[in-house]
């Protein structure tokens, strides 16, 4: 019997592209995802970074970095975690595993979608900062912010994926907020770290968001020290959560 069904590399590549396209389209059309992910950080920045500050102040620039970090985490946690939890419950993940979808296409699709959304959030915040906030940034710094957004979302994709394997269905967004909001606070995204109690300050490097924030601060020219330890820490977080999530998915499906 002809058991070898080969597929041309071109068609395999086409399947990956279709998966990415579908994943992006379905979320662009879902206001329940788009609105919180884009509005949370931009509205906060407008209130605290623009309205309550002098235009062009250091605070406005500092807050642009930390709200970008805050905004970039959302698409990773929710795009990955909430959707995985819901699709595990609804049977979509099972169907995709039964279909001859190329391996990894499911995760790649979500990853590209999250990177695109994170870049969009960073671009929206930059637009607000550069216009209403009176922040001035060189084109190189603007590019660095967008890159920090696009790639900085990845460890949070992995974290979201792990949370998505712990819980099924509609309970996931609640659990994700329990991770998202305290983590943002504890890594100095809402209040500068120096305003937090000493033990909490010392604990900050435990959170991946702290390390991403050091990168966005460096991108707006307010960095301190070398960047590579933070890049390394983020890569380690991403790898660790990815391994944990993959192991749980294999075990519990």
């Amino acid at each position, binding site marked *: *019997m002809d*058991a*070898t*069904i*080969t*597929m*041309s590399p071109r*068609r395999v590549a*086409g*399947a990956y*592209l*279709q*998966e990415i*396209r*579908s994943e992006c*389209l*379905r*979320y662009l*059309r*879902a206001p329940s995802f788009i609105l919180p992910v884009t509005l949370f950080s931009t509205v906060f920045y407008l209130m605290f970074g623009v309205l309550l500050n002098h235009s062009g102040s250091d605070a406005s620039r500092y807050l642009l970095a930390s709200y970008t970090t805050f905004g970039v985490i959302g698409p990773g946690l929710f795009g990955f975690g909430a959707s995985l939890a*819901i*699709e595990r419950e*609804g*049977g*979509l993940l*099972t*169907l995709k*595993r*039964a*279909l*001859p*979808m*190329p*391996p990894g296409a499911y995760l790649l699709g979500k990853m590209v979608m999250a990177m695109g959304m994170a870049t969009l959030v960073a671009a929206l915040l930059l637009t607000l900062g550069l216009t209403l906030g009176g922040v001035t940034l060189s084109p190189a710094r603007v590019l660095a912010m967008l890159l920090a957004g696009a790639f900085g979302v990845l460890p949070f994709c992995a974290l979201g994926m792990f949370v998505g394997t712990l819980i099924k269905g509609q309970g996931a967004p609640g659990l994700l907020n329990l991770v998202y909001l305290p983590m943002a606070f504890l890594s100095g995204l809402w209040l500068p770290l120096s305003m937090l109690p000493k033990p909490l300050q010392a604990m900050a490097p435990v959170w991946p968001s702290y390390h991403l924030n050091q990168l966005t601060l460096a991108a707006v020219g307010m960095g301190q020290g070398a960047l590579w330890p933070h890049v390394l820490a983020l890569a380690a977080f991403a790898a660790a959560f990815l391994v944990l999530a993959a192991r749980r998915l294999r075990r519990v*499906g």
Partner: protein
Amino acid sequence: MNPSMPPVAELVGVTQRYGALTALDALDLAVRPGELLALLGPNGAGKSTSIGVLLGLVRPQSGQARLFGRDPQDVASRRRIGVMLQSAALPATLRVGELLRLTASYYPAPRPLAESAGLAGVDDLLTRPYGKLSGGQQRRVQFALALCGRPDLLFLDEPTVGMDIEARQKLWAAIRTLVGEGCAVVLTTHYLEEAEALAQRVVVMGQGRVLTEGSVDDLRGRVGMTRIRCLSDLDAEAVAGWTHVAAAQREEGRLVVTTAAAESVLRRLLDADTALSELEVRRAGLAEAFVELSRQDREAA
């Protein structure tokens, strides 16, 4: 269908345990090229687990699963199958045409989109978002996704749940067309008339094993039951206690008696209730055969 051809899908001595529960008990099952096989059995009989193992969703704890002679977890073997699961919440914001295009992209030589849509009767839904469709329409879309890759083997898990009679018959016609093209089908269903209408071979499962298998006629013949239906005041429970009566109950106000000795039971019924009317006598369908086989299995256990 040619029995000498190697099976398109098979389970060989597959055992699957979940804690104390044995879902599959050294199960052997083979699907031959081009045949329509119906898997029947009560909930917990092992139908869904069998399908899960055949689709590569679950790796068998012992024994072997093969799809086209390969490991089902190998994506290449799954490029020849189509799948419709019992429940799959597809992305609500994607349009039907987009879902079809995406699923077709997984296959080496899919059907043209219009052909898939036509076969499944969703041509008029292509631009509609999936989430806006009725339950029956969503099932039709899922069926279109199952057949869009031009599979040699189709898995249909309870395909007509939630469909009205007309939609169900359209789906049956489409399944017959696919079988006519040489596609093998594994169908699980609770609607016995569905197996009766479609299946060339029926496998009845219970407690993770094959209880019996054969054609619909074989199966009916094996239990040789007749169904008597009538309007009567007789107490169903009392009738159930008569000799030769396998079962007796009230359905929609009528007395329904299942028996292997129709003549003697009829005589007694007519004697016992002279006012008896609207009498119907017919050979038992698969439903009664199935009830009888499950009962025999329980008694043997």
